[in-house]
C-alpha cells in the first residue's frame, strides 16, 4: 500500500523536504515529464530545510542558497496504503494489483492502519506536532501510470507538521570536527504512490506496472540562490534523485549553475530539472504541458483521519478502531541521536565513531554484544569493530549479518589480547584465521598456530642476553646514546621468539641488563 508522509524541515535558509512514500507518486510529480523511474506509494513525506551555504564569491557578492527537499519514503507495511493488496520487493509486474489499485470504477480507498501508525511514529521521531485531525485530498493529472487520474495525498491538513531533525556534520581536513545542525520539517503527509512507467523508445510504447512499491527513497530538491538580505531567488526543482550522493551532487551543481547564470546576466526559470548522473549536471525536463494545475479536491471517500491521545480517547472505545498517539510514543524505539549520546558518554567514544556504529545496519548490536562478553576496554573494542571488523566486511562487501565472525568469537579474541595471552599482531592474525576458518575458536587458532606470548621470563632473559652477545655493535650504539638502537635489539629478540614475546617486557629486560 502506499502511504506517503511528507515532511518538510526548515532551518536557516536552506530547506529540505522529504516524503516518505508507500507506493504512490510523490507529491510534486510532474505528470508529463519523461520519467523512467518508478514511483511508489509513499507513506511519508518530509520536507526539511537544509542549512544555507553562504559562499563568498571573490570578495564581491555573497550568495546564499536555499534548498528544500521533498523526500518520498516507502512505509514498511504488508499491504498498500489504500488497498489490501500486498507489498513485495521485486514482485512480477502487475502481480500485486487490487481492483482499487487498477482504479476500477466503484472501488473505494480504505486506509491502512499500519501506514497511519508509521506516519505518526515518523512524526514523533522527527519532533513534529501530530495533527489529531488530518484530511485527504485528490491531486489531479493525467499520466499513464496514474490510473485514477488523480493521486490521494494530504495537501491541506497533513498528519504531522513543524518538526525538526538534529544532525552532525564533519568538517576539517580529517573530518574530525563535528558541527551540530538542525533542519526544520514542514510536514509529513501520507500519499498514495503512482505506478511505474517503463518507456520502450524503440517501439514507442510505455509499459505500466501498478505494483507500485519498490522499496526505495526518492528525493526532489528545490533550489534557489539570492544575495543575503534580498528576497529569495526563483527556484528550480530537481526531481527523482535516488541516492544521497547524487542528491548532494545535484544540489551543488544547481547552486553553481544558478550563480553563474545570474552573474552572467541570465535569469533562472521556475522549472523542473532532472539530474544526469553520467554528466553530473542538471538538465530541464521536457514538460509539454507547462505548469500544472492539480485541481485539488477533498477526497470524499475517506472521512477525516482522527487520532487520539490517552487524554482525549473517548471512554469505551475499541482500541482496534482508534489510534492512540501515546501508545505509539511508548513503542517508539530509542532514537539514533540518543543512542549516539549514550555511546559517547558510556564508552568515551568519539562522536564520529558513534555515528559510524549507527550508520551500518546491525553494527551497533554487534558492538554491544562484543562489549557484553569481553573484559577489553571499550576503546579497544570500538577500534576493533570499526577498523578491523568493518574493514573486512567492506573489503568483501558483506553486511554485518553475513559476517563469518560472531560477536562471541571477537570477544574471546579481545580477551586473549587483554590477558596478554597474545600480542596485537598475533591477534590480527587470529582474526584473519577466524574469518576464513569457521567453527574454530580463537583459543584453538592460537594454540594451533603457536601464537601465545612467551610468558617465561627466564627464557626471555636468556634470549636477550644471547642477542646482546651476538650484536655487540648495536649494544655499543645504545651505550653511545642512540635511542633507536634499543628498538633494533627488541626487534631482534622478538624475531628470535617468533614474534611471541611482548615487546614491552623485552624492552624492560634489555634496559635492565644495559644499566646493570
Amino acid at each position, binding site marked *: 500500500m502506499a502511504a506517503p508522509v511528507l515532511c518538510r524541515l526548515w532551518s536557516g535558509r536552506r530547506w529540505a523536504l522529504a516524503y516518505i512514500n508507500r507506493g504512490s507518486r510523490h507529491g510534486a510529480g510532474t505528470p508529463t515529464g519523461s520519467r523512467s523511474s518508478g514511483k511508489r506509494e509513499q507513506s511519508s513525506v518530509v520536507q526539511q530545510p537544509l542549512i544555507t551555504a553562504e559562499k563568498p564569491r571573490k570578495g564581491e557578492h555573497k550568495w546564499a542558497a536555499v534548498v528544500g527537499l521533498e523526500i518520498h519514503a516507502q512505509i514498511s507495511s504488508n499491504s498498500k496504503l489504500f488497498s489490501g493488496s500486498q507489498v513485495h520487493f521485486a514482485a512480477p509486474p502487475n502481480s500485486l494489483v487490487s481492483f482499487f489499485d487498477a482504479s*476500477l*470504477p*466503484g472501488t473505494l480507498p480504505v486506509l491502512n492502519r499500519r501506514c497511519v501508525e508509521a506516519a505518526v511514529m515518523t512524526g514523533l521521531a522527527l519532533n513534529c506536532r501530530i495533527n489529531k485531525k488530518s484530511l485527504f485530498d*485528490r491531486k*489531479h493529472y493525467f499520466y499513464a501510470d496514474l490510473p485514477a487520474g488523480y493521486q490521494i495525498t494530504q495537501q491541506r491538513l497533513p498528519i504531522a507538521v513543524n518538526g525538526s531533525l538534529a544532525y552532525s556534520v564533519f568538517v576539517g581536513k580529517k573530518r574530525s570536527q563535528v558541527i551540530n545542525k538542525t533542519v526544520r520539517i514542514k510536514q509529513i503527509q501520507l500519499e498514495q504512490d503512482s505506478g511505474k512507467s517503463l518507456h520502450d523508445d524503440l517501439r514507442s510504447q510505455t509499459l505500466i506496472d501498478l505494483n507500485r512499491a519498490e522499496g526505495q527513497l526518492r528525493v526532489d530538491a528545490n533550489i534557489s540562490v539570492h544575495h543575503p538580505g534580498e528576497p529569495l531567488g526563483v527556484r528550480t526543482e530537481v526531481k527523482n534523485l535516488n541516492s544521497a550522493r547524487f542528491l548532494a551532487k545535484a544540489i551543488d551543481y544547481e547552486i553553481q549553475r544558478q550563480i553563474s547564470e545570474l552573474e552572467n546576466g541570465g535569469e533562472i526559470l521556475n522549472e523542473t530539472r532532472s539530474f544526469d548522473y553520467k554528466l553530473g549536471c542538471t538538465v530541464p525536463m521536457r514538460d509539454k504541458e507547462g505548469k500544472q494545475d492539480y*485541481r485539488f*479536491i477533498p477526497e*470524499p471517500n475517506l472521512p477525516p483521519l482522527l487520532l487520539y491521545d490517552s487524554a482525549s480517547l473517548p471512554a469505551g472505545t475499541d482500541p482496534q478502531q482508534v489510534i492512540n498517539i501515546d501508545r505509539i510514543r511508548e513503542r517508539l524505539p530509542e532514537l539514533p541521536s540518543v543512542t549516539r549520546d549514550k555511546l559517547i558518554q558510556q564508552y568515551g567514544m568519539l562522536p564520529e565513531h558513534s555515528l559510524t556504529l549507527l550508520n551500518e545496519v546491525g553494527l551497533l548490536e554487534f558492538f554491544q554484544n562484543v562489549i557484553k562478553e569481553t573484559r577489553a576496554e571499550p576503546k579497544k573494542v570500538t577500534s576493533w569493530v570499526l577498523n578491523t571488523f568493518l574493514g573486512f566486511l567492506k573489503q568483501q562487501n558483506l553486511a554485518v549479518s553475513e559476517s563469518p565472525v560472531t560477536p562471541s568469537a571477537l570477544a574471546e579474541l579481545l580477551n586473549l589480547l587483554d590477558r596478554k595471552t597474545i600480542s596485537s599482531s598475533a591477534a590480527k592474525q587470529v582474526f584473519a584465521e577466524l574469518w576464513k576458518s569457521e567453527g574454530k575458536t580463537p583459543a584453538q587458532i592460537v594454540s594451533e598456530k603457536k601464537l601465545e606470548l612467551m610468558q617465561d621470563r627466564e627464557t626471555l632473559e636468556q634470549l636477550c642476553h644471547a642477542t646482546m652477545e651476538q650484536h655487540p655493535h648495536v649494544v655499543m650504539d645504545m651505550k653511545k646514546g642512540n635511542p633507536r638502537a634499543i628498538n633494533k635489539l627488541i626487534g631482534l629478540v622478538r624475531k628470535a621468539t617468533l614474534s611471541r614475546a611482548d615487546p614491552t617486557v623485552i624492552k624492560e629486560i634489555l634496559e635492565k641488563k644495559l644499566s646493570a
Partner: protein
Amino acid sequence: MKDGCAHVIPVAVVDLSFSSLSFAPCGGRQGTRTMLGRTLREVSAALKQGQITPTELCQKCLSLIKKTKFLNAYITVSEEVALKQAEESEKRYKKGHSLGDLDGIPVAVKDNFSTSGIETTCASNMLKGYVPPFNATVVQKLLDQGALLMGKTNLDEFAMGCGSTDGIFGPVKNPWSFSKQYREKRKQKPHGDKEDSDWLITGGSSGGSAAAVSAFTCFAALGSDTGGSTRNPAAHCGVVGLKPSYGLVSRHGLIPLVNSMDVPGILTRCVDDAAVVLGVLAGHDCKDSTTVQDPVKPFVLPNLTDVSKLCIGIPKEYLVPELSNEVHSLWSKAANLFESEGAKVIEVSLPHTSYSIVCYHVLCTSEVASNMARFDGLEYGHRCDIDVSTEAMYAATRREGFNDVVRGRILSGNFFLLKENYENYFVKAQKVRRLIANDFVNVFNSGVDALLTPTTLSEAVPYLEFIKEDNRTRSAQGDIFTQAVNMAGLPAVSVPMALSNHGLPIGLQFIGRAFCDQQLLAIAKWFEKQVQFPVIQLQELMDDCSSIFENEKLTSVSLKQ
C-alpha cells in the same frame, strides 16, 4: 395550525378517484399468473407456502421483460444468471432452507452498479463492454439473500440527468403511458391518436429501475440517488423510491457520480418492501469507509396507528411558482390528512433552499470532473484508435466515450477546481452546503419528525416536450425538491399518493432525520395506507402484446395490507 403558525398551503379539494380501483380479495390461493402483481412480501409468502416456485416466478418475470422490451427499461437481461439462481433457490426451498424474505425474489439493478461477470455500462460508450470482476456490496448482499438478478436497468449516461433519456441505449418509456388510467383520460382529448409518439418519460436517472418495478418485471430494484435520481422516477412511475441516509448503505461498487452525495436507492411497489430491502442492504461495509460503524439490526416496520404524537413540517420554501396546481393540491391534502388524524402539522423554514440547486451544481460537477478522470481508455472501457501520443489517445477516447452532458459537467467541474476559482466556487459551495444541512438540523431540532414536500414539480411529461429543454435546465427543475436532501445526507422517500387529472401518478416526499430511516418509513407506510394509491392497469398493454395475464385482469392483483 395548532401551534398558531399560518399554514401557507391553500387547501383545495381534489378528487383522488380511489373508487375507480378494484382489488383482489385478500386471502384465498392466488394463481401464479397474478403473482407478478403482488408485493415483495406477498410473493415471498407465496414462495414459502409453495404456491409458486422460484423458477416459475423467474420465468414469468423474464417473459414479461420480453413483452415490455419496448419500455427500454433493461439494458442487459441476465436470463441465464437469473434462471440458475432460481434453480439454486428452488433447491433451498425444497430443503426448507430458505435464506429469508428475498430468497427467490426477482430484482433488477441499475446499470451503474458493478455486477461480477455481467456487463456494466452506465449507459455510456465509455463503458460499453466493461464486465466488472466483482459485485457491488449491495448487489452481493441481495444475492447472498437468494435474490434473482433479472438484469441491469437503463439510466441517463453515468446517472447524469432526470429523465432517463440521455443514455446511449435510448430513453426509457414510462409504463403509465400505456396504462388504462392514462389512455382513458387521453381518449377524451382530440390528439388521442398520437399515442405512440406521445409516450411519457419515467424521470431519472433511475428510470429503468422505476419502470421495471412499475411494469411488474421485478419486485424490487436498485437505483442510485445523488440529487433525486431514485425519488424522481419513483414519483413519475407510481412506485416507492427510498433514498437512505448517507452512510447507511455501502457505495462500494456503485460507479460514482458525486461520492459525497451518492446513495444506493431502493424502488419497490410498497413501503414495506422498501423496508425489507433496506434491512438487507444497511450496515457497515469495510470496503466503504463512509458507512456507519454501528451495527444495524434487522427490523420490521411497525404499523403506525396513532399519528397524534407526530410533528410534520411543511417547508415554506418548497412552495415555488413552478409547482403544478395538482401537485400543490395533493401536497395540501396530504398535510390536512395528517392534521385531521391528530398530527401536529407546522410550517417550517429552510431559508437557504433557494441557493441549493446552484450549490449542488458546483459540487456535483467538481466531483464529476474528478471521478471521470479515471476513464482514460487505458485500463478498461472504450479506447479510440488514435495512438500518436498518450495525450491524443486520452483526448479522443474521452471525446468518443462521453456524451455532451458528461463532457459539459467535466468542463464545468474542472473550471471550478482551478486554483484561481477554487475559493470562489468550490469552497463557497461547500459553505452553502453546510448552511443547507444546518437548515435541516435546525428544523429537526425544533421537534419536527419528518418533512412533507412534493417530489417533483408535476406529473411525468411526454418525451417530446421534455427534450425541448437542455439537460441542465431539466436537471435543475427535476431535482429542485430532492437534491438538498442529498447535500444534507438525510433519508427521504417518495410515496405515490394519487393520479393526476391525466391519470398519471403523483408522489410526495417525506424527509427524515439522519439515520432515522425506520421512523421515516413508518410514517410513509401510514401515509401509503391512507391514500390507497391505485394499481397501474396494464392489461391493454399486455393484451396488445399477447398478455401473459391471459384471462386474468391486472386489476385483480392483490394489494393485501
